[in-house]
């Protein structure tokens, strides 16, 4: 086990601490009273978690692909189960993303959540522990436990604090995800029977037969494709996003969707490399369809939240595209893009939540012409809009550029097919921005009843808390946009190692096999490509 791990050498067990603080905080919440105290407590706990997680960044050793800050505890010896946790260059950024987004989730729910605040804080804190658990688990069983455990608080977030169609949306979210993850469970058990271990690095090192790889790849990919979500399994996402409360949407967009991408990188690629290489064309085709389809649907939405939800489908398409290019630029781009999407889309959902608190509508037409009355708000909205369609100088530009470089260096066609997606993103985001800031409000009677040209004279601009929330994210938009080198350096060795794993692993398959046995799959793939072109 030692060859895969670097045990934690900090003065405290950093990963356990990061996971335990929200959990203990959640339990203490049950004994607190008073809305103000509860909110402050939630904020305090999440901030402490973020601070405690900082050494993961500062003390991270970017020269190794081993799992760092590792901790291993015995748990269930009958099945060789261990509580093993650690981070590498792929997961560390996602862990940090989680710990830093969570305080903002509490902040953006400050006035939004009015009922059952105690339960809300409790559920959000539990959610944080479960999400962090997914990213730090080095054990498939542990991974699965957190993966599933996360469902319950998220379900409650939508079902209890959601919008009018919350029942439908929450059940759809739950069933979709559960249906995917039960196959994940089968794959995990099957691999355990085969190898006798749940330990992820050992599972990666094992050589599975080609046929076996295909099956476990499909089982894993189904679960992760639902979570990402990839076309055509994305239908739960708009429903869940629209009905979820603002903090729920932010958690969903910023962190939950990343688990799909992370799963691909942690399970599919290294454990089933030969299958990955064989099935890559289909996943690339699906990724491109997600990009185009998500962007196209976003173009036609009148509900702002739905628009951003569909745009997420498109953005996450870039992430899966980068992953399955199987080269370092593509994968680095997609990891960076996951972080970027977490920042930008999270920020956009917070923006929507802020305007919804003021106008109680998510329709574009009810929120138009805000430029005059809410200058600070539209400034921030502008920044995140630019970031959402990958304007140079913003964070998404770097990520998308890397993915496209990876695409063009591997398959020019794939790169060319992804470009319209980027154009679509500009189209729907600028349309949204234009309408919300400048649109003439003449057509809408109730807007102009005071004759001052805006109709929104009652709307107050952002207060200090809201400015702080958005400013924090805006800083990251530009920081990553202008100076992405530190983040890229962190993931560099791990990604190179992963790409090596895939390519050496894929060499083990007989060269003829995958062309003959999967001729029908190839045909389906080329048909799908044609459809995309069409």
């Amino acid at each position: 086990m030692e060859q895969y791990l670097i045990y934690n050498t900090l003065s405290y067990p950093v990963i356990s601490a990061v996971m335990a603080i929200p959990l203990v905080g959640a339990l203490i919440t049950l004994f607190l009273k008073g809305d103000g105290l509860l909110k402050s407590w939630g904020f305090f706990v999440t901030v402490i978690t973020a601070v405690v997680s900082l050494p993961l960044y500062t003390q991270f050793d970017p020269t190794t692909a081993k799992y760092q800050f590792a901790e291993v505890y015995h748990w269930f010896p009958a099945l060789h189960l261990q509580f093993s946790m650690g981070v590498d260059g792929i997961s560390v950024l996602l862990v940090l993303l989680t710990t830093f987004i969570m305080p903002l989730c509490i902040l953006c729910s400050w006035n939004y959540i009015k009922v059952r605040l105690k339960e809300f804080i409790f559920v959000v804190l539990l959610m944080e522990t479960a999400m962090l658990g997914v990213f730090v688990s080095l054990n498939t069983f542990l991974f699965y436990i957190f993966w599933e455990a996360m469902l319950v608080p998220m379900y409650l977030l939508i079902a209890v604090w959601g919008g009018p169609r919350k029942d439908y949306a929450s059940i759809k979210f739950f069933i979709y995800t559960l249906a995917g993850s039960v196959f994940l469970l089968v794959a995990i058990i099957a691999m355990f029977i085969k190898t006798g271990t749940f330990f992820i690095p050992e599972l990666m090192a094992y050589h599975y037969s080609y046929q076996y790889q295909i099956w476990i790849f499909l089982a894993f990919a189904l679960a992760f494709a639902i979570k990402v979500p990839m076309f055509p399994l994305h239908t739960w996402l708009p429903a869940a996003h629209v009905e979820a409360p603002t903090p729920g949407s932010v958690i969903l967009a910023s962190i939950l969707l990343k688990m799909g991408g992370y799963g691909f990188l942690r399970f599919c690629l290294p454990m089933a490399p030969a299958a990955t290489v064989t099935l890559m064309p289909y996943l690339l085709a699906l990724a491109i369809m997600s990009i185009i389809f998500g962007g196209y649907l976003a173009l036609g939405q009148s509900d702002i939240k739905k628009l951003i939800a569909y745009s997420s489908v498109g953005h996450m398409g870039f992430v899966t595209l980068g992953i399955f290019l199987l080269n370092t630029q593509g994968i680095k781009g997609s990891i960076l893009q996951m972080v970027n999407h977490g920042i930008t889309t999270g920020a956009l959902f917070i923006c929507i939540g802020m305007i919804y608190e003021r106008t109680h509508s998510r329709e574009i037409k009810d929120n138009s012409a805000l430029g005059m009355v809410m200058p600070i708000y539209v400034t921030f909205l502008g920044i995140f809009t630019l970031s959402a369609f990958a304007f140079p100088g913003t964070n998404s530009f770097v990520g998308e550029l890397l993915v496209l470089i990876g695409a063009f260096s591997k398959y020019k066609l794939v790169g060319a097919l992804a470009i319209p997606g980027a154009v679509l993103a500009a189209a729907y985001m600028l349309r949204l921005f234009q309408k919300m800031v400048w649109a003439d409000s003449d057509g809408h009677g109730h807007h102009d009843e005071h004759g001052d040209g805006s109709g929104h004279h009652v709307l107050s601009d952002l207060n200090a808390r809201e400015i702080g929330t958005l400013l924090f994210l805006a800083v990251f938009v530009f920081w990553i946009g202008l100076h992405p080198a530190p983040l890229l350096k962190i993931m560099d060795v791990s990604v190179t190692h992963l790409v090596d794993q895939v390519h050496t692993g894929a060499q083990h398959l007989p060269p003829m096999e995958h062309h003959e046995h999967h001729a029908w799959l190839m045909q389906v793939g080329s048909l799908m490509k044609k459809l995309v072109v069409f």
Partner: protein
Amino acid sequence: MHLSLFLPELVLILMVVVLFFASLGNVKAGSLQGITLVLAALATLAAVVTFNQQGLMFYEAYRVDVYSQIFKIIITGSLFLVVFLGPGLSGIERQIKPEYYLFMTISSMGLVFLSSAVELLTILLSLEISSYALYVIIPLRRQDGFRIQMEAGIKYVLFGAFSTGITLFGISYIFGLTHSTYLTDLAKVIPGLLTSQPLAIIGMVMMMCGFFYKLAMFPMHFWTPDIYQGAANETTTFIATVPKVGAVALLIRLVFLVGLDVSQFTWVLAAFAVMSMTVGNLSALVQNDLKRLLAYSSIAHAGYVMVGILSVGELGTSSAIYYILGYVIMNLACFYAIYNLAPEGGNVTFADLKGLHRRSPLLAFTLSAGAFGMAGIPPTVGFTGKFIVFTAAIQKGLYALVILGVINAAISAFYYLKIVRAAYSQEEEQQQQGKVLLGIPAKLLGVALILAILLIGIFPQSFMDLAKQAVAVL
């Protein structure tokens, strides 16, 4: 023969005698429940004390070992919890409460006998002792509408008699083929007979039907929804938990006769298991009465337990024992909520759950813990149980069974979530039904059930060790 081997049974017999005399006199309801509780606790204690005893009794027809004792602990412990559930028997007429406890105890006693019985006629007699007592208590329900519990009672008798008949018929086949009724003798010849004699498979399956009936497993599951719905809440709680433990104890013994290999017989049982899960889960989706829903859910769970039972071996069999323990705890959690929600002893529907989180947060939470557990969401005992069961099945190479099982688990999440959603829904304005008041003991029980669901799920090791010890002596 040492009497100490027979200690739990003796305590139960004493309990029967005490309750019989109580039924002759006029005992207050509160003290009656107290007496029953103390005696049930004593029986559990006796089972724990005799945990490491070993020996054969009654012309080698009755075997006491770790395996039988672990089931006796679960059975007597469940009996204790069922009696503990709430303020004594709100669904039963006051003057027949002693009789009610009496027959409940007799039924448990039959099941305790069953877990030690290793001879076919002893098995049948134990099964009948437990069934006859149940025939009596199912129609005992205090309600104005006289029909529903009578219907349930009649159905239970008819289906019960029918399945006992089939079991007897199966036993006659097996006896005809092997000329013995002792399981130790059968174990030597049955594996050979199964490959050469189709009659042996038919005989074995028919013999098991009586236990399928007790476990509410396909194809003997038809009685379940009506009886669950018609019987009083406390009766349903009992039927849903205790007899199933006894049935599992015996099914494991019978399946062990067949040997460790995957055979035709395994596939017959696998088909039953899949049908059981599918029928149970699909029917449960549309139920509105909570007890009826739990009836279908129990049919589905019978399927999961069967997956563990037919994955014969150390892990498979001990996983079945673990699963049934988890099943009992989760069901008790759900029925605890139902029982306390209906102080008048009526049935509970989804509409009655509305705003429960406000009326009684503890009940809502216990019910949700039970529902999430049965849906198999980590870190509950339901998840760990399913996980170990499926691991054992994959080890046996039963991939198809596992895949159908997990698909079923995903389907079942829908109706379990419906329960949670109803309990936590916000329409409290029109539903001013007032708070549900719980006594201190009831509160303690709720907390204990929640903790059990979580802790046994997170730390399965200690119980699995016991279960493995038990399997080792089979």
